[in-house]
């Protein structure tokens, strides 16, 4: 019996749209209960693909060719659709990237929150509404009564993201997948949202898989990190170790490539071509 909440083992996938190009290559990943793991990489690294595979929402053009995704010891990839539906949105929840489109524009916030609770937790309308109100208060929305009656377009991006965080934690899941939840937000709002996710996560003891392209975010919110390139795990470990004593040249170069407001000459050193060559060789592309 494993103590891991989530174990991704040897997960491989190809893209049928690009003539079977591998998008995931033997990915291994673990998440303990209550752990926050950053899944980081540049575009095309496969970080979102992993998140989507866990949630069972891969596009049809991506085909899994091997490996397993064990959630609490059961492989999600071979589970019956009915069992999967019971788990998704109940034991596994998503904080989406784009708070604009993730909420139904024609429904009030209160209805959308309560609806999920009625469906997944079998609450009565009245109890669900009371719970939704409490949830909004939990994500530090000052005027939950008003927000309950609001439509999504009446809220700011940060406020909408708070609502979505409330919705994700509403069902008290054991795993939350956060898919770049702050990319659409201003930096000051981003910090509040990061803080909120961390607090909610700690309060509920939730395991979080945090997909991002920003090593800074990883440093500040995650316990551990998995760095991907071209669908392959390049480096993995506790955040502090990876950032302070990176093992792979790519990790080092990536940290050096990011600009920093506290250093005037940072951010001007692209990842050297030699490093990409090394990566390609290691992975076996070309």
């Amino acid at each position, binding site marked *: 019996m494993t103590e891991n909440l989530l174990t991704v083992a040897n997960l491989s996938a190809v893209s049928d749209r690009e003539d079977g190009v591998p998008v995931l290559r033997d990915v291994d990943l673990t998440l303990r209960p209550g752990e926050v793991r950053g899944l980081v990489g540049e575009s095309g690294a496969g970080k979102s693909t992993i998140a989507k595979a866990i949630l069972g929402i891969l596009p049809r053009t991506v085909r899994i060719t091997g490996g397993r995704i064990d959630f609490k010891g059961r492989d999600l990839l071979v589970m019956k659709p009915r069992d999967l539906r019971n788990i998704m949105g109940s034991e596994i929840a998503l904080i989406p990237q784009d708070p604009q489109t993730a909420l139904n524009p024609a429904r009030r916030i209160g209805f959308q929150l309560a609806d999920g609770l009625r469906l997944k937790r079998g609450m009565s309308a009245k109890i669900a509404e009371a719970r939704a109100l409490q949830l909004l208060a939990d994500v530090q929305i000052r005027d939950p009564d008003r927000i309950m009656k609001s439509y999504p377009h009446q809220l700011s991006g940060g406020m909408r993201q708070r609502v979505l965080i409330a919705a994700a934690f509403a069902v008290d899941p054991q795993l939350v997948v956060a898919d770049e939840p702050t990319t659409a937000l201003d930096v000051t709002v981003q910090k509040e949202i990061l803080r909120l996710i961390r607090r909610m996560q700690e309060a509920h003891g939730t395991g979080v898989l945090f997909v991002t392209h920003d090593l800074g*975010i990883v440093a500040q919110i995650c316990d551990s990190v998995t760095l991907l390139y071209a669908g392959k795990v390049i480096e993995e470990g506790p955040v502090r170790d990876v950032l302070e004593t990176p093992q792979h040249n790519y990790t080092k170069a990536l940290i050096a490539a990011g600009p920093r407001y506290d250093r005037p000459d*940072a951010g001007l050193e692209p990842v050297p071509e030699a490093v990409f060559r090394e990566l390609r060789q290691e992975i076996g592309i070309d």
Partner: protein
Amino acid sequence: MDEHLLTATGIEVTYGKRPGLFGGKPATPVLHGVDIRIGRGQTVGIVGESGSGKTTLGRALLRLVDVSAGSIAFDGKNITHIPEAEIRPLRRRMQMIFQDPMASLNPRHTIRRILTGPLLLHELASDTASALERVKTVLDRVSLPAACLDRYPHELSGGQRQRIGIARAVLMQPDFVLADEIVSGLDVSTQAQALKLLKGLSRELGLAMAFISHDLSVIRAICDYVYVLRLGRIVEEGPCEQVFGNPAAAYTRALLDAIPLPEYDPGWLERKSEA
């Protein structure tokens, strides 16, 4: 004569005013009296969050949107209200690089046409052949092969498109370039490439540049001087060392404190700025 290449004073821009039978649609002010000066060869950062008006400000500087008050002088010439036909000859000298390189390149034109057309228009090249020569030189400078000349924009990668955008601006031999959020859609490694390229080019060509971004770290990497914009007003300005080292405005401090750095810092998440 003004020592600055570009001077904007008291810029106000309002959007959405429409005449109508019953008073029309009210105007929304976006900029409330902004002053900006950009010296020759200087790279000036304009930073702000969404709704700060930074994009509008940039477009006002190039006379792409009309200002409702204030004045803009370019190389000592007041261009605030001169008609479009009079600006056109000046256009060559003030170029722009765009945020979304896909949207800023005509999808139905080849790279060849996108890059040679402007040269011929401004008679920077006497004929197509010599225009092509110049284009090839600049392509080489931005590390793109001549092979991409016959491609359409959608056949290139994001980073390559962005370098086409940079090449297009540089080809005009401008004195001033406006760069609007040009690295926000790029990966870190591609971003570093673009920044390094731009910084090198501005030095080599003595370009003055206004670099608009929401990201203070990017500004720090490339700018000499910075303006912090909030809700259509400038809340702080100064040389980068000063603003980043010792920010005067609470808002600037809040912005800086909100940027996550890739280093272990257990207290960061709970640390609150007073703004």
